[in-house]
């Protein structure tokens, strides 16, 4: 179960690249796991390691302190491609708690919110500002649905209300479904 998400003050880490797909976030050959833990090492694997599996020193992700940098800012259309939930698992395990882009792919967005990784859709102007100002401290307030960015312009963001509720409570939506067992049974009876 993910921890509760209320506010987060942290520095940003910028990957200024569009259309980062879930095969980049975690390559398919690491999907032969039966657990959801320990995937942080595999996050952005093929960008971070050479063909022998040695970490590349020139790659900023390998030197990143995720205690102080918990917010990923990425180019447009982040998380497209495969529906693998391993992608948010890997990013969360790596240390990120929020990802900001001007557009985030549907399935990734839904998967992220279920795993303690807040997907934030920024308006274009604010997104451009964040891309142009890497490594700034910002504050995410999920209750107020706002991001405050020190010198930069703050912005409000929308998130599906139920996803927000689950993130703030640290709960999984499964409880909501099982609580509606009667409605499911009624539907099954009526359509049988």
């Amino acid at each position, binding site marked *: 179960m993910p921890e509760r998400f209320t506010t987060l003050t942290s520095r940003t880490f910028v990957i200024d690249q569009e259309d980062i797909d879930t095969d*980049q976030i975690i390559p398919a050959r690491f*999907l*032969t796991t039966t657990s959801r833990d320990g995937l942080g090492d595999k996050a952005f694997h093929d960008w971070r390691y050479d063909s022998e599996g040695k970490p590349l020193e020139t790659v900023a992700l390998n030197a990143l302190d995720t205690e102080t940098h918990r917010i990923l800012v990425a180019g447009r259309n982040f998380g*497209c*491609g495969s529906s693998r*939930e391993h992608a948010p698992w890997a990013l969360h395990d790596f240390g990120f708690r929020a990802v900001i882009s001007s557009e985030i792919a549907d399935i990734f967005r839904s998967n992220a919110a279920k795993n303690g990784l807040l997907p934030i859709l920024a308006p274009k102007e604010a997104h451009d500002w964040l891309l142009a100002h890497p490594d700034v401290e910002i504050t995410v307030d999920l209750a107020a649905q706002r991001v405050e960015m020190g010198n930069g312009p703050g912005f409000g963001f929308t998130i599906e*209300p139920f996803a927000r509720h689950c993130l703030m409570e640290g709960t999984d939506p*499964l409880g909501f479904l099982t609580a509606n067992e009667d409605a499911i049974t009624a*539907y099954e009876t009526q359509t049988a």
Partner: protein
Amino acid sequence: MSPDSGRPRSLFEKVWDAHLVKAETADTPAMLYVDLHLVHEVTSPQAFSVLAERGLKVRRPDRTLATIDHATPTLDFAPGEAPPYATDAARKQVETLQANASAHGITLHGWDSEHRGVVHVIGPELGATQPGMTIVCGDSHTATHGAFGALAFGIGTTEVGHVLATQCLLQRKPKSMRITLDGPTAPGVSAKDIILAVIAEIGVDGGTGCVIEYAGEAIEALDMEGRMTVCNMSIEAGARAGMIAADETTFAWLKGREHVPSDPHKWDMAVTHWSHFRSDPGARFDHEVVIDATRIRPMVTWGTAPDTGIAVDAPVPAARSASHARALGYMQFEAGKPVSGAKVDQVFIGSCTNSRITDLRAAAAIMSGRRVAPGVRALVVPGSVAVRKQAEAEGLDRIFIEAGAEWRQPGCSMCIAMNGDKGEPGQLIVSTSNRNFEGRQGPGARTVLASPATAAAAAIAGHVIDPATLMEPAHA
């Protein structure tokens, strides 16, 4: 409520409305009932673990169908021998699904099944995929099943757990988009060329938040395999799902399959029911796109996103952004020059996009009486055991083998490169699959997406080439 009452509705809305267990509110998404849940080894183990942790059962094992495809080897092995898994982890993943399926009473089309195959190939093949259904799978290409007028979503593993436990999916109602493909397509243009052209037109995020309905003369003229190819790649435009209304082509294809009614009266009733699921005249869509299908040519991609399709002999466009420049560099293509002529290292004919019998026939027609070019490795991977048998009955396997291609056992294979079938760094692969992302077919491997005919032609020529040049039968 009959599906035809009230205001005009789209195909998507009719299926959506018929499956509402609970309507959405400001605070909570809709609860949508799932008619068919497809399961495979890669995205299910963690979902079954959640069920076990919470002491929950699978609510409807009878509506759940499992197979093994992603991590499974496609190499031959003798009966009684252990399958030659690429890794121990892959073996364990398959064994985990076997154990979960048997513990929960779920039908698993495993190693001993005549119906094993890629999940999006076997659902339709069994007739389990039917018009008007809701279908989900922990796999983004679930949209394939929309070719039958079903509403089919790819979901994450947490949602796989939800559906296992409750047979329901939490969803906000997506927006709707209709893409009309006007006019007939030119001879030699396949369904793959159509969908690559559509994605090039609307972009990798053109369908974000939407369910797409494909319509128009060029779509109606497609056979079911072609319609599956089109719907399959809806996610490559960012869409939640893709759909095509069922018609006589659909019903004829489904008739006689295992999961559809065999009793003539029940069959007629089913067809009547299915026929309701089409957009009413006057149905409204949030977005409408019209594409002139007569101008579509055989397509290939030049970049590392599926919206980089261009005609095979058209020049690669100049980079419009840093991402495009990076893609050009990765692919080692030069702006202003066509993709045709690029030297090919491997050819992959397979995947849930293009591994069905008509795909293999198209590839075989090109390869017949010819030889794969020296230095090129060509892999032909049928989508299912049934497709493999049908191809062998038609002698297609002989054509591939005599041409020098490898004739494999069914599976996802080099589409996702997690079973040991893969490209090497720097290699150029012409592939009938659906994704050309960096490293998708192996670290550093470069992927050109194309139709089965274009891929087969590349194997013969040794470089990317317009398949029209090889469409005349070879002289013996």
